[in-house]
């Protein structure tokens, strides 16, 4: 009988567990689009990805030194990526920073079409079709962006799409500081 009762308690316990997570999720100051990352301040994880279009250069983690860069994980199936795209097009005009794109879990032809259609802000675009590099970065989903300093260290992480506010108030000041 007791065991039977415990069975009936399961739903409420499962719900409470979820509710507690929700409560943590609401903690003041937590911005869902700015999830802190243990990767901040650390070197970019090792990777070596093929180019999106045959013939173009690929990308390795060791290529990331010497210039300030923003790495953007995107996919053509991702709705927020489309929302974010015009902002990246604008950002690409900023000479202090180079934008690199990683097409994440996306068929190369779909990702290519996406860039033809909406414009290509990326100096280099590579394909992470298996999603393995995304896992090494700690990507939750797309879009997600990482600001990499001249020494190849991650300095900022954006989970989810950039908003104009994010770019003006968070990213631009950091770019100004790091490009001194």
């Amino acid at each position, binding site marked *: *009988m007791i065991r*039977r*009762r415990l069975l*009936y*308690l399961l*739903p*409420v316990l499962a*719900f*409470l567990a*979820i*509710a507690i*997570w*929700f*409560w*943590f*999720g*609401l*903690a*003041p100051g*937590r911005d*869902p*689009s700015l*999830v802190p*990352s*243990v990767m901040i301040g650390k070197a970019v994880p090792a990777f070596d990805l093929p180019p999106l279009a045959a013939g173009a250069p690929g990308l390795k983690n060791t290529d990331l030194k010497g210039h300030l860069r923003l790495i953007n994980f995107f*996919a*053509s*199936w*991702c*709705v*927020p990526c*489309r*929302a974010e795209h015009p902002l990246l097009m604008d950002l690409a005009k900023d000479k202090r920073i180079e934008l690199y794109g990683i097409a*994440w*879990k996306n068929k190369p032809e779909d990702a290519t*079409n996406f860039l*033809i*259609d*909406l*414009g290509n802000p990326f100096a280099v675009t590579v394909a992470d079709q298996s*999603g393995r590099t*995304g*896992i*090494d970065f*700690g*990507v*939750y*989903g*797309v879009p997600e962006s990482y600001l990499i300093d001249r020494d190849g260290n991650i300095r900022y992480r954006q*989970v*989810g*799409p950039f908003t104009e506010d994010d770019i003006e108030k968070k990213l631009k000041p950091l770019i100004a500081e790091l490009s001194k």
Partner: protein
Amino acid sequence: MIIEFGHFALVLALLVAALQTVVPLVGASRGDPRLMEFARPAALAQLACVAIAFGALLHAFITSDFSVAAVANNSNSRQPLLYRIAGLWGNHEGSLLLWISILSVYGAAVAAFGGNLPARLRARVLAVQAAIALGFLAFTLFASNPFARLDPAPADGAELNPILQDPGLAFHPPMLYLGYVGLSMAFSFAIAALIEGRVDAAWARWVRPWTLAAWTCLTAGIAGGSWWAYYTLGWGGWWFWDPTENASFMPWLIATALLHSAIVVEKRDALKGWTILLAILAFGFSLIGTFLVRSGVITSVHAFANDPARGLFILALLIVYIGGGLLLFAWRAPSLKGGGLFAPVSREGALLINNLLLATAAATVLLGTIYPLILDTLGQGTVSVGPPYYNATFMPIILPLIALTAIGPLLSWKRADLPGALGRLKFALAIAIIAALIAWWIHGGPALALLGVALAAWLFVGALTELIGRSRALSPGGLGRLRRLPRAAWGMTLAHGGIALAILGMTGSAAWKQEDIRVLRPGESAAIAGYSYRLDQVFPVPGPNYEATRARFTVSVLGNAEGSKPVAVLYPEKRSYPVAETTTTQAAIRMLGLADLYGVIGEPDGKGGWAVRFYYEPLVPLIWIGCLIMAAGGIVSLSDRRYRVGAPQRAAARAKTVPAE
């Protein structure tokens, strides 16, 4: 003045809801009929108060009263009337008021038409319904006041998000809310039954039509939302596993399970505890959806307000309603006596498997939706969500379910003959194999798509087999028997057939969609899927509150001589809204046979060319046709005789149903 009057009416509604929660509960436990009867006039009064508040806010939106913050932030005097009205539910505060209005419509409907319910059950149902209203009225008044004023009032408003200015989106939220909120009825009935400690066939018969109505609205609402995404987002997709979409999909899955398990309670007096649990969970998921969309814990493209204080309030409501409901379940459900016993292979067994698969599917979607959040709160994690996750987890659950859907209705209650049932599906199996072979012959694969086609054919023919077998339609006098079948039987056939068609459409979209994206100059053509699209011209068109760039594409069959009759002329638009500084896309879609020709105009390249997108979407219209047939099945089943018999006064009352808003 009208606004203050509306605000006052909403405060009054809060007080009425408080009384309506307490008084009937006390009456029901003391057995005092006068206190129990209080619930009915209270429910009607609550509807009246909420309707006044809703009317006041609607008036402000229609007359563009920008001294009201909700109006100033979400409307503009140049918006057409339809979108000034839709602006009411295009924002957090107003949509919450719509939510509450629908809740009180349902409560009042029980009060007005629930004459055949036992007085005690009715009193408790209305009390629980009022308790839900109480929490959400408090949330509206204290944390999301739609009647807040601005001083000084701005000269003009900030305009409704242009992407929402679309007929599809004007109608789809009310439909969706009718579904979400309708599930509160199942919840109230479940809580009332737990308080009573009794669940029987009569209870199931009362709760099922409400669930069915909510499910029908939810089906139509989800279909409407995905149709909207299909033609306004402009890249040929129709479902994105976005948190907002999942928020409507999870309650739909659970409500579907509930519809099926309530049949078992009604016919066989079994699965009682489970059915009660589903009733709590169905509404629970719709509340969790509300929380996810409005609290800002998860980023979504169509999220409303990112306000943690509001999130905390909704979380408190979640804990009270879902947590409280489940706690009551843990306490009272073990003493519910199950009646009918059944063998594993039986109609009951099949419905139980259906339930388990649907509940697992809902849990999978929930996990995918909140996984980023869970990992975040645990510190750090590495996981990916998005279509790859759902393809890997959701599909393996839903495909067997589809296969079993054809078999279940052929099994008899208590103990069934599985080989016999499978024997009756020989014809369906043959058609499924032929359909897969035809698909293979035309397209050659992929394997999963061939499986999708086969399953769709299997289910469609299986549903017809059941209908024909049940009515012996092919024997003499069959047509008459077919006509005299219970409406519920027709409803089931329609719903299952509709699913089959929708699956065929989804398969076509996933596997055989063709797209072409390129830059065209006027006069040039592109070819895709055997059609040639010629960009004739691009020209500006003024709109009421936007400037549109419209293109004209002439589509003709590839290989036909120039000058032959075109098969379609498409006029896609790109609209630029100066106030909101946003552009939207209006795809031009022409259905040709069972495929959509889909054209979109993009950005100019500055050298006289335009980025254009063409899609050839085979079978895709079937998705929405299938969903509409499913919803029609819900309506037909709702009109079944067994929901009317024994309640002649209710049938008479139905003639003067509350008119739709």
